[in-house]
């Protein structure tokens, strides 16, 4: 029996070839394009990839498991701060030394926050995650001696500990790009796995899942930790790209930013949040050129438009369009 490969949400995969060629084209653009761009735009593309990872990590719990967390930046920021603190206060200099501990801290915080937040669900859960993230914001703001308070901490350019590597806009880009590819494929495997399907089942109908024998709390908890892990990765990449971390990377503002990327792009698709990140950051860049002071206003309007008119996100719409094009030009029948 031939098994149709399942995409998340269970839609059958039609035209594997189409999909791989899409990956190829996009991959090519991502790899080759930056070489021809000015430094600032290279930095922008790096930012997009960093936040794409962050948004994908949120999608794992938001889009796939149905956990609306508004405190996800906590893990993003913790990883970034750990790296910065290690470099500034402990003289630990190379990436290979700072990265593991930073990811560990992010994952640990996720483990602790998960236990607290998952005592409740739905709106309560949202409020609690928001409060916990803000608690970290307050700590970072207050704890001037360690965290630099409101000013944050700056770090020197990325030191890989590899001779011959210098940190430039383009080398940072490729550095982040490699991580992006790895994270994307890891997350893709997770959501396609039996575990990933359980998460979706929990999102769709948690009581039913319990009746089917699943320990739904445990699944949610594990997903929460994994999401924290990947958020930590993006946090480390962020601080190396930005060379500065501040309390704002811990709190509501950063968390809601990620949530927007997810819902604008399309929750539960993994690709959607990547597109969402690109759109939001692109728009932010546009606003910075014309009217930077009004950016929060536009951001708010984007929220409103996304919720009222773009339910389900941009990616599913693009996908449908693509399918229609595919059907028009396909040679054989693809109906199951």
């Amino acid at each position, binding site marked *: 029996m031939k098994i149709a490969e399942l995409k998340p949400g269970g839609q059958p995969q039609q035209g594997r070839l189409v999909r791989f060629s899409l990956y190829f084209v996009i991959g090519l653009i991502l790899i080759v394009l930056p070489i021809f761009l000015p430094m600032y735009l290279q930095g922008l593309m790096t930012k997009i990839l960093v936040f794409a990872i962050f948004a994908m990590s949120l999608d794992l719990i938001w889009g796939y498991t149905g956990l*609306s967390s*508004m405190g996800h930046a906590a893990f993003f920021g913790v990883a970034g701060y750990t790296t910065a603190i290690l470099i500034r206060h402990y003289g630990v200099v190379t990436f290979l030394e700072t990265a593991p501990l930073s990811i560990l801290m992010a994952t640990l915080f996720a483990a602790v926050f998960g236990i*607290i937040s998952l*005592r*409740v669900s*739905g*709106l*309560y859960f*949202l*409020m*609690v995650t*928001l*409060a*916990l993230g*803000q*608690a970290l914001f*307050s*700590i970072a703001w*207050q704890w001037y001696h360690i965290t630099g308070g409101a000013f944050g901490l700056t770090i020197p350019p990325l030191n890989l500990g590899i001779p011959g590597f210098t940190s430039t806009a383009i080398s940072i880009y490729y550095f982040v790009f490699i991580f992006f590819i790895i994270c994307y494929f890891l997350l893709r495997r997770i959501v396609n796995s039996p575990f990933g399907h359980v998460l979706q089942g929990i999102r769709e109908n948690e009581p039913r899942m319990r009746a089917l024998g699943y320990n739904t709390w445990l699944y949610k908890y594990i997903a929460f930790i994994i999401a924290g892990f990947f958020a930590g990765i993006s946090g480390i990449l962020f601080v190396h790209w930005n060379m500065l971390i501040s309390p704002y990377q811990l709190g*509501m*503002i950063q968390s*809601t930013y990620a*949530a*927007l990327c997810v*819902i604008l792009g399309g929750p539960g698709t993994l690709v959607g949040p990547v597109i969402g990140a690109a759109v939001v950051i692109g728009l932010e860049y546009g606003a910075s050129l014309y009217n930077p*002071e*009004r*950016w*929060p*206003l536009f*951001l*708010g*309007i*984007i*929220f*409103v438009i*996304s*919720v*009222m008119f773009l*339910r389900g996100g941009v990616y599913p719409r693009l996908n449908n369009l693509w399918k229609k094009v595919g059907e028009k030009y396909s040679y054989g029948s693809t109906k199951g």
Partner: protein
Amino acid sequence: MDLVVLSLLNGVSFGMVLFLLTIGLSITLGLMGIINLSHGALFMVAGFAGWMLVVQLGYSYWLALLVGAIIAGLIGLAIEQGFLSRLYGLTNDQVLLTIGFIYILMNLSLWIWGGRARMPYHDPLLAGTFSIAGWQYPVYRIFIIGAGLILILAIWWLLERTRIGAIIRAGMDDIETAKALGKNMGRINYLVFFLGSFLAGLAGVIGAQMMGPRIGMGWDILLLALIVLVVGGMGSIQGALIGAMVIGLVDSFGRALLPDLAMFFMYIVMIIVLMVKPSGILPRESGG
């Protein structure tokens, strides 16, 4: 001993402001299943509007109280009628939508009033101090407590003694009915939503006596409101009241004892409540 009395008064007065802010959130949530996170922003807008009237234009504080509250009420109503009403039952969407409005309201306020924090303001009538326990206690704080008590009584009267109140209470007792009623109750919807936002605005101008209006309040006050709801329990008035008082007192005693760590006490209380009784101290009763 004096410190205890002072902290008590501070805590209760702060708690009153928090209560007025969160009561609207709690009722609309319990009655219509609608969450409007921009309440904090409404609080802020009213505070600024009041500032403009009182400090810049020299009008009476009492007028500012009314105007600020009405502005907040109207904005809240507009958000509900124009947007939230189309999102019944979609909690996530409501959250994201109203977060969008926080950004919008905050940035518009920034545009109108600029980014400087303002000094607290109050009516000259309420200036001066009162002698309590050998200390001089600001009159306006007493006013806040008094106003709070009057409003609590007014709300109680509305809910227990009027027909509208009975309908609201019935709607809040039964989640299913509330959702169904939410769609059919037209004018009650209007009233409840306006009232909730109105009270948030009132809280904003009343609170402006303690905390000068500041753009960042849109987020900060919201955070306080959410902690109040988690601690006190959502969807009920008693919950909002007890949560507000607990947080108000924790904050004021915290500041008296360990000023640097004061704000963390609130988070610790929230975490304790979550681990011990996740639904909050006095949540709305549910069946089953």
